Every structure is written in C-alpha cells, then in structure tokens.
C-alpha cells in the first residue's frame, strides 16, 4: 500500500511541476517559452542517447535520425489521418507522440540489428550512415515535403511545454529504474565485456536491441513533440551536427550517468542561446579574458594532477584560482586600455558565441575527461554526505 501511495504521490508531483512550469513559461514571452520547450526536448534526447551510448556502451552517433523519424512520422500522420480520429488537444498529441515513438523504435530495431556484429568505431560509422540515409531519403520524397520541409496543419499545433517535460521525466525515470533493478546490470555488463556477459547467460543481442529500441523510441517521441510544436519541420532541422551535439551532452555529463546527461542536455542547449545576448566588448578586455582563462585552466590542471590532499582544501584552491583569474582579467584589461589598437577595437561577442561555447567544451574535456558527473548519480545520500553527514554507501551504484 505504501508503495502505491509513494508512487502516486511522485507522479502527481511530477505532473504538477510540469504544469507549473508551463504557466510560468507562458508569461515570459514566446522566445523564452520555446527555449523551455526545447530544453525539455534536449534533456530527453541526451538521456535517451545515454541509454544506448553510456549505459549499454553502443557508440551511436545517429541519434538525430531517430528524432527526425519520430518528427516526420507524427507530422505525416497528423496531416493525413489525424483529422478523422475525432481526438483533440492533449489526447491527440499523446497519440501522435506514441506514433513518433513507435516509428522511431522500428528504426532503432533496424539499426540495432547490424550493431550485433559491430563494435566501437564500426558501429559509429553505421549509425552515422543511417542518419544520413534517413535525411537524404526525406529530402527526396515529395510526400514528406522534400527539401521544402513539412508544414503540419495548424489545427495540430500544440504548445505543450508540460508534456515535453513529462516526457523528459519519464525518460529519466525509465533509465533510473532500469539501473536500480537487477535488469539494468546486463546492460552495463554488455558495455563492460560482451564475451563474459554471454558466458554468464546474458543474451547480448537482445540487450543491445532493447537499448536501441527504448532509446530511439524516446528520441522519436521528442521528434513528434517538435513537429507539433513548431508546425514545421525540414531536413535542415536535423543536421548531422545535431547528433554530435547530443553526443557531446552525453560525454560531457559523464558517459553512463543519467544525472550528467540530463543536466548537460539542458545546460549545453542553453549556453549558446544565452550567449546570443552578449554585449559588444572591447579588444582589451577580450584579450585579457583569453589570457586569464588560459592561465586559470593551466593552474587548475596543475592542481588536479599534483595536489592529492584534502578534498575541501583542493576545492578552496580551485575557488582561489577562479577568483585570481577574474582579478587577472581585470588587471590585464586595465593595462591593455593603454594600447590604442586593442582599446579601440570592438568585438561583437554574440558572434563569437560558438567560439566561446566550443572553447568551454574543450576546457571541460581537458580538466575532466570523464565528464562532469563521471559515473556518479544524484541521490539523497549523496546530498547528505555533501553536508557532512556520514551515510554508508548502501546503494549499489553504477
């Protein structure tokens, strides 16, 4: 009984939070609303790719293709058939979402099958090729709008931020539940050693295909949401770079960590958007910033490599380095003010946003190659330990 009470409570809480988010975002203007929506999509995409890539260890770089398959599947069905279903609003969107998920899951099955025989880089090439095939196929098929794109009928446009975030939460919950139960172990075992897994009775084929099917189903559901939110999709909405962006989220968050990929999905999506609003900067402060960042990264790296003392002290050293870096930037900027050629040059920082974004990624990988969360997960006992409570690590962690 207690189990069902807790379960019902957490589901109610999740739904309420998502509706609260919706009403909060509505009041903040169209742009912000869309950002909140897209952030939910990216969280779903990153977490679902993490299931394939991080947890099961199947190096897939074609995740955008499943997203695209879901989007087109749902868009096409909406335009051509949904009118006669007699469904409306959230229920119709839910059905379209399921269609996107199923179509993408079938695609995942198709890609999952060759992956039985391929490993590592070979599989990566296959998934990359699959992504391109899908995109070019869509580009050349008139029923799907070809290169012009597919306009989804206005009556099927749904601005459901809440549903996207429920989808993201569901995706996180599925992965977390899988890892908390013994059923998740074969997935991790396949990642660690396929030969040993099969010797222990694990059906490696089935595990890999299951991972692909579940992962791509969530990507497809996300695609369906996108198609019906924007009302327009085209092959250019799903470039190859998108697959790499999702992959970057997984790697940066910490391959295999659900917490990591969920956070990285949201944050990495938001950073470039945030940087759009940067004000122009003078050459002197830009050069000063570059020097300060390089110096700070160097020092942090030295500390990480050579200081193995107390964790608290090390954190203090990092913090000190960051403060020193900011101070260095200010001092240098003041010094460079005296150099006319630098002081008078103005840079549109917002145009440099992708440079800043990429540099951030490189720096993060230099400092923490295992990803921000490495293989760790968020848990309450972890929070308690952070605040100095001694909690035994009872949970079987990944």
């Amino acid at each position: 009984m207690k189990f069902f009470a807790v379960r019902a409570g957490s589901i109610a809480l999740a739904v309420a939070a998502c509706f609260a988010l919706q009403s909060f975002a509505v009041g903040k203007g169209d742009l912000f609303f869309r950002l909140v929506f897209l952030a939910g999509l990216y969280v779903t995409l990153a977490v679902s790719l993490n299931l394939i890539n991080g947890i099961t260890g199947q190096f897939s770089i074609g995740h955008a293709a499943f997203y695209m398959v879901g989007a087109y599947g749902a868009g096409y069905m909406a335009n051509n058939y949904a009118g006669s279903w007699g469904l409306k609003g959230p229920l119709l969107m839910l059905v379209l979402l399921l269609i996107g998920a199923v179509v993408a899951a079938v695609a995942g099955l198709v890609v999952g099958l060759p992956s039985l025989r391929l490993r590592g880089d070979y599989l990566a090439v296959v998934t990359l090729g699959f992504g391109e095939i899908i995109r070019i196929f869509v580009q050349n098929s008139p029923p799907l709008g070809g290169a012009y794109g597919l306009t989804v009928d206005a009556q099927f446009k749904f601005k459901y931020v809440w549903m996207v975030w429920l989808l993201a939460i569901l995706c996180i919950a599925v992965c977390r539940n899988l890892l908390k139960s013994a059923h998740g172990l074969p997935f991790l075992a396949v990642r660690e050693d396929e030969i040993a897994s099969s010797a222990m009775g694990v059906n490696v084929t089935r595990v890999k295909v299951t991972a692909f099917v579940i992962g791509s189903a969530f990507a497809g559901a996300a695609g369906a949401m996108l198609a019906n939110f924007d009302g327009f999709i085209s092959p250019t909405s799903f470039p190859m770079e998108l697959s790499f962006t999702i992959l970057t989220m997984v790697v940066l968050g910490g391959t295999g960590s659900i917490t990591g990929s969920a956070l990285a999905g949201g944050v990495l999506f938001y950073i470039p958007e945030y940087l759009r609003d940067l004000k122009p900067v003078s050459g002197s402060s830009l050069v000063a910033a570059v020097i300060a960042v390089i110096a700070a990264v160097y020092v942090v790296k030295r500390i990480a490599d050579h200081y193995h003392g107390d964790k608290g002290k090390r954190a203090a050293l990092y913090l000190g380095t960051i403060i020193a870096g900011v101070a260095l930037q200010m001092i240098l900027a003041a010094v460079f003010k005296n150099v006319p050629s630098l002081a008078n040059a103005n840079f549109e920082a917002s145009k440099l946003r992708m440079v800043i974004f990429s540099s951030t990624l490189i720096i993060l990988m230099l400092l923490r190659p295992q990803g921000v969360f490495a293989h760790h997960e968020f848990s309450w006992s972890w929070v308690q330990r952070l605040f100095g409570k001694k909690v035994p690590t009872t949970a079987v962690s990944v």
Partner: protein
Amino acid sequence: MSLLHLDKATIKFGGLIAVNEVSFEIKTGQLFGLIGPNGAGKTTCFNLITGVYKPTSGSIKFEGREISGTPPNKIAHLGIARTFQNIRLFGALSVLENVVVGGFLRHRTGLGSAIAYLPPAIKETEELKQDAMRLLEVVDLAHVANVRSRDLSYGMQRRLEIARAMATQPKLLLLDEPAAGMNPQEKMDLTGTVRRIRDEHDKTVLLIEHDMRFVMELCENIVVLDHGEEIAQGPPSEIRNDPKVIEAYLGEAV
C-alpha cells in the same frame, strides 16, 4: 553418469588444427584436470564447450544432449559456467553487481516490471543481491562487496570470477587457470575453495592449470593435450609416470 562427453571434437582455424579429435568423459561430481604446454589447445577446448566456437567436426554432449553450436548464453542456461584465463570481470561494476549478473539468468520478472520499478522487480533485485552476498561469503569477498571490481587485487579478482560463475548455479564449472599468478599460500587456499565447491555445493569441476603440483593434488582425473592432440588420460599417478607426458610437458617427474 557422464555429465560432459566430448567425442572426437575437432576445430580448425584455416590450416591450423587447434583441437584434433579430442575425446573425454566427465562424470558427475568429478574434479577433472585439463593440462598441456602453452598452445596445446586447452582454452580452445573450453571455448568449444562453452559455445564460443562451433566444432568443425565431432560432438559435445552435456547430460546426453548435443550442445555443439549452441550460443554461449544458452550454454550458461543449460548449466555450464566458466572463468577466464585473462580475467574478464565487469570492471566498472561493484563486486556484488558482478555476482548479481551471474545470478540474473534465473530472473522471472519482465523488463516492463523493472522499468516501472514495480514491487516484483524490487523484490527480485533484493533476492538476487542476497544470493550474491552469500556467494561472496563462500569466496571470502563479502567485506569488499561494494568495491569496484577493477580495484580488487589480482587474487581477489580470480576469486570473484569463480563466485560470478557459481552464481549461475552451474552443474559443471570450468576454471581456466584459476591459480595463475597466485603465491603458494593463495594456491593452497584455492585448493580448499575448489574442493569445497565440489563437496559442499555439489559441482563438477573441469580445470585448466599449469601448476603441476596444484593439478596433481586436486584432480582425480586428468587429460593431457599437446599440439591439439590428446596424448594421455588417467588418474594423476598414471599421468605422472607416462613417458609421453613427461616428454611433451613435464620434462621430469614431479
């Protein structure tokens, strides 16, 4: 009754005959040794029995049933478990989790129940962990249950491999050089562990080993391979004095 029966099992890799018409029979409850110099085809024999390779010709019967060509995961379900010569643990998983993977083949709940995290799946996970914990006590690893298996010492990793194989509850346990890299004390402990596995847990054991003293002391029956051919078979006392074996492998009597 014979548990495992190899009848003229042969495998060729291109022109190389790795195992040539090897036949032997293991009875339930035996401690059986498979020895031979490096490259004699011992591990290949294991790979044939566990389904990693399909024999080119000949038959392999387990409990009277033909198993050659059956995939490794099905073989594990039939009741044959193995350890590996070059340790193959799931490095990033904890010691306990490694053993749970071994026990997982007895799971009854579906994937759906796990994904929804329903009571049956939760309960089963608990049971599997408890079973695993009991096995860790047998091999004296319970105190490191939550340590990442990659971080264990070499001897502990070898013991963990045995525990993981035991977790599948096999009828036949194949140990590939279980004593490799162990010091004399560890080897003695291992002898005791293997005997206990046979006597208290009713397993039949087939093991590959290089350490003569270890094999002679432990095994009741031995097959000797050289260049993929079977050159002798019998109890340790006979093997010890077999001129062919001495020539091929031992060099001198032990």
